[in-house]
C-alpha cells in the first residue's frame, strides 16, 4: 500500500494487522515515533494525521490511505529544528527523551486545537474562546505521560512557543 508521510509518498508491503506505528518504525524505519504501552495509554506514539494528533498504536495503516501523516521526523531535523523542538531543548523538557517525540507532536497539534477554539476539561466558559493558561496546557497534554516527570519544563517549553505564535 501507499502512504503519504512527511510530504512524501511511501510504499509499504504490510499485513492488514499492522498498526500505523509498526508501519512507521518497522517498515519505513521512521523510528522517531516510540512504542511505549502499545495500548493508547502513554502517548509516546503520537503522530499527526491530516494535522490532528492521534495515537499511531491504536490505528491500522490500511485505514490511512490518502491521509497526510506527519511524524517527529517531518516536523524538523537536527540542523533545522521546529520551534517546539528547539523550545524543548532550551527548557530541558525531558530527561531520558523517550516520550519527547510524542510530547512534541502532541503539543504542536494541541496549540492548533486551541487556535481552532476546541474547548477542554479545563475551559471554564464553554461558550467563550479557550484561553492559553498553564492549566489548559496541562489538561490538554494529559494524554502524554512522562515517566521522568519533566512536566513543568514541558509546560514552559510549550508556553514559550505559544506566546511567540500569539
Amino acid at each position, binding site marked *: 500500500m501507499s502512504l503519504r508521510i512527511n510530504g512524501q509518498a511511501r510504499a509499504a508491503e504490510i499485513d492488514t494487522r499492522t498498526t500505523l506505528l509498526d508501519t512507521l518504525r518497522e517498515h519505513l524505519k521512521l523510528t522517531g515515533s516510540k512504542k511505549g504501552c502499545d495500548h*493508547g495509554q502513554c502517548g509516546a506514539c503520537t503522530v499527526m494525521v491530516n494535522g*490532528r494528533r492521534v495515537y499511531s498504536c491504536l490505528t491500522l495503516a490500511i485505514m490511512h490511505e490518502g491521509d497526510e501523516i506527519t511524524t517527529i521526523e517531518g516536523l524538523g531535523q537536527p540542523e533545522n529544528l521546529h520551534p517546539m523542538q528547539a523550545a524543548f531543548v532550551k527548557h530541558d523538557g525531558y530527561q531520558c527523551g523517550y516520550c519527547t517525540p510524542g510530547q512534541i507532536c502532541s503539543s504542536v497539534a494541541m496549540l492548533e486545537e486551541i487556535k481552532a*477554539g476546541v474547548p477542554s*476539561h479545563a475551559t471554564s466558559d464553554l461558550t467563550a474562546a479557550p484561553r492559553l493558561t498553564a492549566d489548559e496546557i496541562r489538561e490538554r497534554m494529559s494524554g502524554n505521560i512522562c515517566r521522568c516527570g519533566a512536566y513543568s519544563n514541558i509546560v514552559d517549553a510549550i508556553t514559550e512557543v505559544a506566546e511567540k505564535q500569539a
Partner: protein
Amino acid sequence: MRPFTYERARTPAEAAAAASRNPGAKFIAGGTNLLDLMKLQIEVPSHLIDVNGLGLDRIEATPEGGLRIGALVRNTDLAADERVRRDYAVLSRALLAGASGQLRNKATTAGNLLQRTRCPYFYDTAQPCNKRQPGSGCSAIGGVTRGLAVIGTSEACIATHPSDMAVAMRALDATVETVKADGTMRQIPIAEFHRLPGDTPHIETALERGDFITAVILPPPAGGRQFYRKVRDRASYAFALVSVAAVVQRDGTGRVALGGVAHKPWRVEAAEAELPRGAKPAMAAILDGAKPTHENAFKVPLAERTLASVLAEARG
C-alpha cells in the same frame, strides 16, 4: 492480533449487509477500543468493515429542534460544536472529561457508546469472565471490585459501562438510530440501548447482529444549567469512579444520570421528584437497592456528595 480480512464500506446499508453476511465481522470506526481488545485477543474478528468513509460525520439540526449526530462524528468535534456547547453543555463536558485529546480525535459517537467495560478481569484472559467467555464464571465477585458496579448487578457480572458520553446522552434522552442490511431503520431510546448484565453479561446492548448505528439524535435542548462532574483517581485521563450528569432548572427540578456505578448509564426518572429536596433524598432514591461490595461501598456516599456539589453550584 489474529489475522483478518478488511474492506471499506461505501454506504450504511452496505456496511450492515457485509456484517450480516459474515458472522465473524466487526465494524471499525476510530478503532481505539476495538484494536486495543484485538491486540489482547479479547476481540477476535475475522473480518473488519471500515466505516470511516461513509460521510456520517455531520451534526445537523432536526425539524423538531434537536440535533442529529452522525455515528462517525469524532468526540473532539462533537464536544467543540457550537450548538452542543451552548445547548447541550452536559454532553460537551462529559466528552471533554473522557480519555485524552489524541483519543477524542479518533473516537466516534457510535464507537464511544459501544466501548466495552474496563473490568480488570475482562482484560485478563487468564481469568474466568462471563462477559468475555459466557459461562466461565465471574472473577470479580470476591475479587478486586473497587472500580466496579454498585447497582443493577447480577450473580454473573458486576462490571460498569465506562463511557462518560453515554451518561450525558442518558440525561439528555438521546435516541440511537440504526439500519439493517435490508434498509430497515430502528430508533432505540438510550434508556433501552444498554442492558443490565442479568445472566447474559456478554449481550450488552439492544443491537442485533449486523445492526449498524447511523446516528444519535438529541431532542430539543433541555435548558437549565448543565453539569458533568467526574470523580477519578487522577485529575485527567482516567475513567470515572463516579460521575454525575445533571440538568438543573431554576426551580430546582431536573434530571440526573450516573456513571461508574452500573452496567449502563444509571438514571431513575421517578427519583428525580426528590431533587428539589436536595442530594441526600434524591441519591437515596436513585441508588435505592444498591448492593455494593466492601471495596466499592464508598461509591454510594461519593455519588451523594458529588450530586450535592452539583446542586450547590446550580443554586449559586
